[in-house]
């Protein structure tokens, strides 16, 4: 069942007397417990779309429903939304983590007691308990980001909007954020995630939507999309140089192999024949030609922009 439904969203702005179409016709849906990676270059319309979903920007056309409620007309729909917005501090820097959690909890409609309790639980879960009474300003960037996510979760939203949640974080903090995103999705929260770190999107998402110049150019399950763009070839790498005898045998299979270069095999049947020839040479790796989200993203956006 789709928790978020956004249909035919359009938004244009007037900039220096020119009408700029930021979002042209975007439709998205996310099911309970699903992570949708929303990918696009800077200025493609990701943030405008997220803000239209969150009720912060009114669409010129189209509609948004969160659990069948319109965030633009029914403010109660916002009880179901948590958001960490890119480029924003998202929390008060002069307050401590526990004060922020309590304040934003009440602002999202919780009682102070419940907000305090949930705040404590989240601080423990996010490993921020030891810093609960430190002014946010004094926390590391990673901790501030974890706190922003905790604050977005304090009212237990059904939909979490994460705009570049790992931007500027170090490796350890990025791992922490990734773990939290996975956990929150497993608990049944629908997550809309934007990131320029496509490896992270690939790792975390169930589905991918690619936006280019305000239009969705691809939307599919992450696995299907990767399969669709992946080839059927295999690459075999050896730890030792290939001898002449084996090189000839490979040539008879129609494979041109060179010393020091990976052996490229076109299908799985030939792969086993190749492995028989190579036995017992030590193998470094056998790898299927697998597309990454980065390859797919670049292929699709370049195609759309007429580069190819």
């Amino acid at each position, binding site marked *: 069942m789709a928790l978020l439904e956004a249909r035919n969203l359009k938004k244009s702005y007037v900039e220096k007397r020119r009408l700029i179409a930021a979002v042209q016709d975007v439709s998205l849906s996310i099911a309970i417990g699903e992570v949708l990676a929303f990918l696009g270059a800077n200025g493609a319309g990701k943030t405008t779309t997220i803000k239209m979903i969150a009720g912060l920007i009114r669409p010129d056309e189209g509609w948004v429903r969160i659990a069948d409620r319109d965030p633009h007309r029914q403010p109660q729909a916002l009880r179901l939304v948590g958001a960490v917005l890119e480029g*924003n501090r998202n929390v008060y820097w002069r307050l401590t983590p526990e004060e922020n959690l309590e304040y934003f909890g009440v602002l999202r409609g919780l009682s102070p007691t419940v907000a305090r309790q949930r705040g404590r639980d989240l601080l423990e879960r996010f490993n921020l308990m030891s810093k609960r009474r430190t002014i946010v300003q004094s926390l590391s960037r990673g901790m501030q980001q974890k706190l922003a996510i905790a604050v977005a979760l304090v009212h237990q939203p059904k939909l979490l909007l994460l705009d570049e949640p790992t931007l500027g974080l170090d490796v350890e903090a990025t791992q922490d954020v990734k773990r939290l995103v996975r956990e929150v999705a497993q608990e049944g929260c629908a997550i809309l995630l934007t990131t320029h770190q496509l490896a992270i999107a690939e790792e975390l998402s169930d589905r991918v939507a690619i936006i280019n110049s305000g239009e969705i150019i691809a939307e599919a399950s992450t696995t299907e999309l990767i399969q669709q763009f992946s080839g059927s070839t295999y690459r075999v790498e050896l730890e030792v140089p290939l001898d002449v005898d084996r090189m000839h045998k490979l040539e008879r299979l129609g494979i041109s192999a060179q010393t020091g270069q990976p052996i490229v095999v076109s299908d799985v049947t030939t792969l086993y024949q190749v492995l028989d020839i190579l036995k017992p040479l030590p193998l470094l790796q056998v790898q299927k030609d697998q597309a990454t989200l980065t390859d797919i993203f670049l292929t699709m956006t370049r195609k759309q922009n007429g580069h190819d």
Partner: protein
Amino acid sequence: MIELFRAELKRRWLLTRRYAGESIAGILGLAAVFYGLFLSAQYVAGPGLHFGSRLDAIVVGYVLWSLVVFILGDIAGGLQIEAQTGTLEQVFLSPFRGATIFIIRAIASLTLRLLLTIVMLLLIMALTGSRLSFSPTLLLPLLTIVLAAYGLALAFGSLALILKQVQQVQILIQFVLLFILALPTEGWSGPARWVAWMLPMSPGASELRAIMARGEGLDWGQWAIALVNGIVYFAIGLSLFNWSERQAKRTGKLSGY
């Protein structure tokens, strides 16, 4: 709503306590400016000058002005700071209406500010020798002034929502407000009286001067006019703020700075 007020009060109290230096410096600064003006006036007029009830009226006007400027700065200034630091959108992600949140915020901070204002008032009275009467009825005209001040603050907040930078206008308006609040409209008659009734906060300020500086009782007729004045300005401010919120969401300028 009560819980939101308590949360705002707690947030304000934490910030006031944590950054006590800023709050105390503000109060001492305002008291010092008034004392400076008072000493200058005494020096220019010579040692024989006695202000009498006029001094009390001026003190009332000045303290009121500081309160109104605070209310004005609280909503508009708060909005500008939050847009700049990036927490404004999180505030608007609440199921509460934007205007409701900012009014509750302003009431919470006014509650704390009133305590500081009383300290400033006592400080000015000690420095200048002014003697004011504190009748409980003064709360009624004060309410009308606060209502109108919130109306103006919301109007400025609406400007801040759309333009994001209204510091220059805010500075300018502070002097206009000082003029309005200190204007002795009590003696005005004919069409000028109508003008006095329509000026923001002016009927309430005049009633407050009558009670605090001249020790008179509350004139219910005048107070009714002051109340209408307060309600009208509040309603205008609220409508403008709601309109600006819709406009900012339409143009995507809620967070832009």
